[in-house]
Each structure stands twice: as structure tokens, then as C-alpha cells.
């Protein structure tokens, strides 16, 4: 439901709005101060101990990679939240939206800045959960809820795999500090646990960054409000997986397994996603699939691992975040002002929305990779890396070629078509949005152009430090340029443009053809997911039906049978019990009073079990209790005996009081079940056997001896039992008295509930 809070008229989001803009803006300014030192090759380590006993530190590592991410997160965050003040500012749940978005930002910043693996994991999960809340923001829609749950389950499962991988890695490296792990690459790669570690890390990264075959959640996640798509599902969160791969590359990279898995999964995702992007008619979905393509390309280049590839990866990371956030914001404006995102219904918006068009066009040109935009530089380096690689030249270059050409088409579909030509009819008459909306795409588009014109700046402050961090080599020089010579990479770029233009001209037919192919394909991931979830639910229901029967007797039967078999089996298998029990010696030592107590208790117990009258049962229980107290008295435990006697009295008082209100049921009408009798006797016999086995062994009195010696000199007490309770083991006692209080309060609440709300259950049909 859209919440029942009264609709408070808010201008531009109210206080929640400006706070949400000010926080990322301030963070952005704060991170800027580190740009200088980091560009000199410095690594900044800050931190405090969080859980020292488990070696978990809240430590921050600022190097080229994490700083680039932090600047993107805070910078794009500022523009996105500014955009949201107009896009969602009048939504009744806007403050909640801001809360989720801020929580996400904290998580994401923590994720990229953490130097401790466990802290990194905690923040990783924060982003998963806040992403879930944001995708499901429109919680009245079943589609949003399903998409949110799908994203949560998939990335959450990946997160668990990642946690396991992190624990193994920490075990192998002997530390959870990334800055220390990254220097131990050789040793980690040689360790037998290397393969499981890589697989677990890849599961985490691939689910988060939506790599094939875990790609299907990302397009569904577009059910989220557009600012969320722009922020989480293109610029930041989905790059978390890429970040992780880049981060651990110095430790885990540089092996056949790493190389082939990453380039195959990345390359496949790249081509597959760019084809599906062309297939879409909803521009937001087009952008969603191009994001998948970009993530695939980033993965591919981390896997390739050559300096050129890492450099290309870093450039492309920045480039993609800039243009993709701009395009998402652009489609957000179009959607907000015209009421549709369907590519066939939008034409000629350029004249009505010139500033939006300008921002979108700048971003789209960068995405298409046309010079002098930074997108061109990024593509150029990707080609160079592909051509320079010895093992998989064709695969890497080919996938990048196909993807770049298709990107060109996608850019045309997303911007050229809607904004040019004759104005079409839209659900709402098109008009320009407020400045807070178009400022974002405009700034990001301008940066795409500016970075392309001045590549030195990007190189020095972002790409070079980032490349050092991922490549793990701080002596390597990074050189970015727009154009230097006509070489193979440049020629490939020209071929890309030609292919792209041809494909754009025929894209309507291409889309139809793709639709036919996809319709014919029997493997469908999304419905497959539903079947998986249904299967798990059916399994849960099946096992619940069988194990959780809801019958108390059956539960007790299972518990006692398990106890008997496990204890008895262990004793028998270990041969722990010596059956040559010397009864003669035992009987010699027994006095009359011993016999009397034994008989008393045994008779009381048997009487309680077999009597049909509840008064007899209570009396018999009293006999047992007093008998036990007598044992305590006879064997030198005065404190225990007094306690037992007092408690026994209280039990009788309580039972007597309760009996006044309980029915005088005939306890004897219980059906006689031979099976129960057999199990009872067996359990009793096994407990006796265990106890006798214990008594046959030696008693380790070390702790008792210590207490006896220390009780007076150290704790100034002559009653050793009391000293143990209130001094040596006071923490235990504290826990125990807390339990007593809780039991009393719980019982009190139960009784009071009877008095004041006792028939509530009947009134609303509780039965």
C-alpha cells in the first residue's frame, strides 16, 4: 500500500530531499582531498578494531581503485539524489526512499573502502538488502515484489558463497586484511584451497554483477524507480562484483582457471546482452541490457589481465558509469514528462526537451564510442588489449567488436530515435523537466566530453592509480591519448562505426528477427527461476509435513529415541561400559538409611508414572523430591539440600494452586502403549549405563582442587559452594538469575493476558 501517512505537500522533497543531496556532495568533496596523494601512488590505510577477538577490523584502504569507486558513488549519488527530489519528491513514501538510498550509499562506500574482508562482506550484504528494498519500493506491485525477492535471493546466495570464499582466503593468508592478502599472490595460488576460493569468489561476484548465467535478475530489477536504476543497477552496486574481482586480482588472478572463467563468462555475457538490448522496446530495458554488456566487458578485461586490459577496464569503468547514469536519468525525465518509455511512441522530443536531449546526446555519443569522447578512448584500449593478447586474441577482440557495434545501435535507439524526427503523441504532452532533473545528465555528458578532450587528467588522477592497484604493480606507467597513429585498433574502430550504422538502419528488422530466435529458444531463465523457487517451496512443505507433524507425542518419541540410540550406540561402540560390576562390594557399603532413600525415590517415581489419580501423583512427586533432598543431606551438600527442600515446597504450593482450576481429569484413561513402555525402559537403562560408565572412570578434580585452595585466600569465603556461585562463576550465576527473571515475567504475562484479553481469541474467531 502507498502508506497511510497523510499526503504532506512537499517542495522538492522537503528536508529529506536536501539532506540526501548534501550528504553525498559533502562526501564527494571529502574524497577529493585524497586524489592528490593517491595519484602519487600512495595507499592510505585508516582503521579501528571492531571485533578484535575475531580479527575483524573496520579498516579503510584508499588506493586508486577504491578512490575511483568512491568518487563515482558520491558524485553520481549527488546527481541522482538531486534528480530524485523532483522525480519522487511528491511521493508519500519519499523519506523512506531517501533512507534506503542513503543506507545503500553507506553500504557501497563501505564495500569499496573496506580493507578487511569480513567488513567488506558486511557492507556487501548492506548493499544487497538496500537494493532489495529499493527494487521493491513500489510494494503494491506484485512484479516489483517478485523482482526484489529474486534479486535478494540470487545476490544473497552469491553473498554466502563469497563469505565462505573469504573465510577460506583469510585462513590461507592468515589475515583478513586485504592490504596484506594482496601481497601474498604467489603463496595463495600455490595453495590447494586456491580452486575452491576462486570458485566461491566468482559465484559472489558473478551474481552481484549479473554475469551469465545469473544475469536475469538485473533487467527485472528495473522495476525500481528510475533514479535507483541509474544509481544502483548501472553505476554502482552491480559494479560491486567487478570491484571485487579487480580488488582481489593481484591475489587470485594470473592463473588459467581465473583467465578462462572470466573471459568466457564475461565475453558471453557481453555479446548475449548486447543482442538482447537491441531486442527491447522499452528504452529502460535497452539500457538495462547494455549495462549487462558493460559488466561483461569489465569482467572480460579483468580476466585478460594484461596491463592494457586493466587500463582499458579502468577507463571503461569510469566512462560507463558517466554515460549510463546520464542515460538512465534522461529516460527518467522522458518517462516523467511524457508518461511512456516505449521506443515506438517517442519521436521528435528534441525540440520540446532541448536540455535533456543535449545531456542524453553527449552520453550517447560517448556510449557509441565516437571521438573525441572518452568512450572512444575506452574502446580503443579495449581493442588494443584484445589484439595484444596472445592466447585469446580472436575471442576478446571479436566480442568487443560485436558488442561495440551493437552499443552503437543501442545508443541510437535510446537517444537518436526518441529525440529526432516529427513529434509523436505521448500520454502526456512533452515538455522540459525542472533543472534538478536535467542538470545530472548534462553534467555527466559534459564530463564524458571533457575527459575525452583532456585524457591526461583522467589518466593521472583516476586511471593510472586504479591500474596500479588492480595490476598490483606501482612502477607501471599509464599513458592515455585520444589519437596517436593509424593502427589496427583504430581501423577496428572505424569498422565498428560502419557496422554500427548499417545495423542501426536495419534495427527494426533485426529486432523482429531476434524476437523470433528468442521465442524459439527453449531455455528460459526467468520462468526457470520460478520453477526452482516453486520446487524449493514444495520440498519445504514436504519435509515439514513429515518431520513437523504437530503431534507432541511424536516429537517426544523422536527426541527420546534419538537420545537413546545416540547415547547407547556410542557407549556400545566405544566399549565405554565395563560390565563386570561389583555388586557385592556395593551392597556391603550400603546402610539402612541408604536403602530406605533408594526405595523411597524409586517407589515415588514408579507411582507417579502409573497412578491414575492426580493427587496421588503430586504426593508421589513430593516423595521423590524429599528423597532427593535426603541424598543431598547424606552426602555433604547442605546448600543444595536446603534449596531442594524449599523448591519442593514451592512446587507443591504451585501445583496445588493450579489444580484448583484444572479439571479433575482421570489420568488413568491414557491408552497403554507397549512401545512407549519399551522406549521408556530403554532410555532409563541407557542413562544408567552412561552414569555407571562415568563412575567407572577417573574423576578429574583439578577445578575442584583449585576452588578449594583459592576459596579462602583469594575470595575470602569459607563456603566453597557459595564462593563458586557468587565469585568464581558469577557470570554464569548472573545468566541463570536472568533466566529465572525471564521465566517469571513470561509466566506473569501469560496469566495477565488471561485476565484482560482472555476471550479475545474467541471473539475474533481464534478457534
Amino acid at each position, binding site marked *: 500500500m502507498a502508506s497511510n501517512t497523510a499526503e504532506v505537500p512537499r517542495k522538492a522533497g522537503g528536508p529529506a530531499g536536501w539532506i540526501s543531496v548534501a550528504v553525498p556532495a559533502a562526501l564527494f568533496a571529502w574524497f577529493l582531498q585524497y586524489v592528490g596523494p593517491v595519484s602519487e601512488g600512495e595507499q592510505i590505510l585508516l582503521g579501528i578494531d571492531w571485533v578484535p577477538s575475531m580479527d575483524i577490523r573496520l579498516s579503510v584502504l584508499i588506493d586508486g581503485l577504491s578512490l575511483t569507486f568512491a568518487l563515482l558513488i558520491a558524485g553520481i549519488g549527488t546527481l541522482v539524489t538531486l534528480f530524485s527530489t523532483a522525480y519522487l519528491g511528491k511521493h508519500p513514501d519519499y523519506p523512506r526512499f531517501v533512507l534506503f538510498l542513503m543506507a545503500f550509499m553507506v553500504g557501497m562506500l563501505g564495500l569499496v573502502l573496506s580493507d578487511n574482508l569480513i567488513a567488506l562482506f558486511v557492507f556487501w550484504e548492506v548493499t544487497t538488502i538496500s537494493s532489495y528494498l529499493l527494487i521493491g519500493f513500489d510494494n503494491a506491485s506484485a512484479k516489483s515484489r517478485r523482482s526484489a525477492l529474486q534479486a535478494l535471493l540470487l545476490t544473497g546466495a552469491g553473498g554466502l558463497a563469497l563469505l565462505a570464499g573469504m573465510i577460506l582466503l583469510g585462513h590461507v593468508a592468515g589475515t583478513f586484511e586485504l592490504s596484506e592478502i594482496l601481497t601474498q599472490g604467489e603463496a595463495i595460488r600455490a595453495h590447494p584451497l586456491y580452486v575452491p576460493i576462486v570458485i566461491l569468489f566468482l559465484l559472489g561476484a558473478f551474481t552481484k554483477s549479473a554475469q551469465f548465467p545469473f544475469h536475469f535478475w538485473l533487467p527485472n530489477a528495473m522495476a525500481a524507480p528510475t533514479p535507483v536504476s541509474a544509481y544502483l543497477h548501472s553505476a554502482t552496486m552491480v559494479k560491486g562484483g567487478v570491484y571485487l574481482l579487480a580488488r582481489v586480482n593481484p591475489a587470485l588472478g594470473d592463473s588459467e582457471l581465473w583467465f578462462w572463467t572470466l573471459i568466457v563468462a564475461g565475453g558471453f555475457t557481453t555479446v548475449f546482452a548486447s543482442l538482447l538490448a537491441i531486442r527491447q522496446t522499452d528504452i529502460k530495458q535497452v539500457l538495462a541490457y547494455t549495462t549487462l554488456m558493460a559488466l561483461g566487458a569489465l569482467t572480460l578485461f579483468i580476466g585478460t589481465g594484461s596491463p592494457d586490459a586493466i587500463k582499458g577496464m579502468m577507463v571503461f569503468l569510469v566512462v560507463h558509469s558517466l554515460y549510463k547514469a546520464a542515460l538512465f536519468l534522461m529516460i527518467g525525465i522522458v518517462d516523467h514528462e511524457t508518461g511512456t518509455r516505449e521506443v515506438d511512441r517517442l519521436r521528435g522530443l528534441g525540440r520540446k526537451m532541448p536540455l535533456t536531449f543535449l545531456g542524453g546526446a553527449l552520453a550517447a555519443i560517448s556510449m557509441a564510442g565516437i571521438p573525441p569522447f572518452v568512450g572512444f578512448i575506452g574502446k580503443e584500449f579495449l581493442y588494443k588489449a584484445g589484439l595484444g593478447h596472445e592466447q585469446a586474441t580472436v575471442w576478446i577482440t571479436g566480442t568487443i567488436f560485436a558488442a561495440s557495434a551493437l552499443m552503437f545501435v543501442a545508443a541510437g535507439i535510446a537517444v537518436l530515435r526518441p529525440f529526432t524526427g516529427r513529434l509523436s503523441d505521448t500520454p502526456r504532452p512533452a515538455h522540459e523537466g525542472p533543472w534538478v532533473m536535467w542538470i545530472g545528465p548534462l553534467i555527466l555528458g559534459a564530463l564524458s566530453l571533457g575527459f575525452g578532450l583532456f585524457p591526461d587528467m583522467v589518466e593521472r588522477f583516476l586511471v593510472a592509480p586504479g591500474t596500479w592497484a588492480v595490476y598490483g604493480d606501482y612502477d607501471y606507467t599509464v599513458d592515455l591519448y585520444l589519437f596517436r597513429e593509424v593502427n589496427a585498433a583504430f581501423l577496428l574502430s572505424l569498422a565498428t562505426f560502419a557496422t554500427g550504422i548499417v545495423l542501426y538502419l536495419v534495427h527494426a528488422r533485426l529486432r523482429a528477427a531476434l524476437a523470433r530466435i528468442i521465442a524459439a529458444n527453449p531455455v528460459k531463465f526467468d520462468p526457470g527461476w520460478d520453477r526452482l523457487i516453486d520446487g524449493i517451496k514444495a520440498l519445504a512443505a514436504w519435509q515439514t509435513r513429515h518431520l513437523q507433524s504437530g503431534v507432541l507425542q511424536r516429537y517426544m518419541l523422536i527426541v527420546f529415541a534419538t537420545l537413546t540410540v545416540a547415547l547407547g550406540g556410542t557407549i556400545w561402540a566405544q566399549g565405554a561400559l565395563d560390565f563386570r560390576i561389583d555388586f557385592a562390594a556395593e551392597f556391603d557399603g550400603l546402610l539402612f538409611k541408604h536403602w530406605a532413600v533408594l526405595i523411597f525415590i524409586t517407589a515415588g517415581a514408579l507411582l507417579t508414572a502409573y497412578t491414575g489419580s492426580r493427587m496421588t501423583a503430586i504426593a508421589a512427586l513430593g516423595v521423590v523430591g524429599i528423597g532427593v533432598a535426603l541424598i543431598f543431606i547424606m552426602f555433604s551438600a547442605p546448600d543444595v539440600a536446603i534449596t531442594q527442600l524449599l523448591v519442593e515446597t514451592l512446587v507443591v504450593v504451585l501445583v496445588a494452586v493450579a489444580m484448583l482450576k484444572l479439571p479433575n481429569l482421570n489420568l488413568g484413561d491414557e491408552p497403554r502403549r507397549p512401545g512407549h513402555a519399551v522406549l521408556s525402559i530403554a532410555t532409563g537403562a541407557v542413562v544408567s549405563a552412561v552414569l555407571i560408565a562415568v563412575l567407572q572412570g577417573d574423576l578429574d578434580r583439578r577445578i575442584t582442587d583449585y576452588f578449594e585452595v583459592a576459596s579462602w585466600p583469594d575470595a*575470602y569465603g569459607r563456603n566453597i559452594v557459595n564462593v563458586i556461585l557468587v565469585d568464581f562463576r*558469577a557470570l554464569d550465576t548472573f545468566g541463570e538469575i536472568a533466566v529465572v*527473571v525471564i521465566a517469571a515475567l513470561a509466566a506473569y504475562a501469560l496469566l495477565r493476558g488471561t485476565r484482560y484479553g482472555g476471550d479475545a481469541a474467541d471473539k475474533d474467531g481464534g478457534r
Partner: protein
Amino acid sequence: MVNSIILNAATRLLVALLLLFSVFMLLRGHNLPGGGFIGGLIGATGFILYAIAQGAEATRAALRVEPQNIAMVGLGIALCAGGFAAFFGEAFFTGQWLFIGETEEDKGLPISSVLVFDIGVYLVVFGSILTLVLALEEEV
């Protein structure tokens, strides 16, 4: 509530005696059988006797404080006694001792965080049991 003159007359005396005895058991507990658990149980028994003779309502009036509050205060006292060691830089629940009038031969009157802890235990047991019994008694 039981209408018995003997019981009514006897309880007045017995409650006071049991309460006094419970405090005695509490205080001597560190050196002889006794302590907070036993003291609390004896004290509670005294008031339960009173409740049987005079009714739960009268017992609550005689207690003046709700028994569940007594239990919670006791828990708080025990916690404070445990945390007290932190002021001296020692581990949680390390006993702290002060001997008033200490001489060469005699340790004088000992006051300790351990005794405070035992008083907390006493109040918890006393309060919890009365909470239970009084609530159940009022039900019936």
C-alpha cells in the same frame, strides 16, 4: 485465602521470622551454608504463607512494591556488582573487597561486590517466585 484463625495469627509472626531468617541465611552464606538463592527462597516462602492466609491482594499491599520490580532491581544490582570491577580495570565480575577496621589478626568487617551480587541474587529469586505465585493465586 484460608479462613483459619490459627493460621492468620501464626502467619503474622512467621512472616517476620522467615524474613529475618532469610536475611540471616543470605548474610552468612559466604562462610556457612546459605546464600542468595536459599535466602530468596526462604523469604518468598514467608510471603507465600502470608498470601495463603490473607490473600494475594493483602500480600501485594504488604510488599508495597510489585514483586516483578523487585526481581528486575535485583538483576540490576547483580549487574552493577559485576560491572563494578571495571572501575579498577579488572575483568567483569572480579570480586572487589573492602575490610572495615582491618587489623593484623582480624580482617574486620568485610564489604564486597560479591556480597552485593548475592543480594542481587536474593532479590531476583524472591521477586521472581512471588511474581509467579501471586499471579497464579489471583487467577484462582
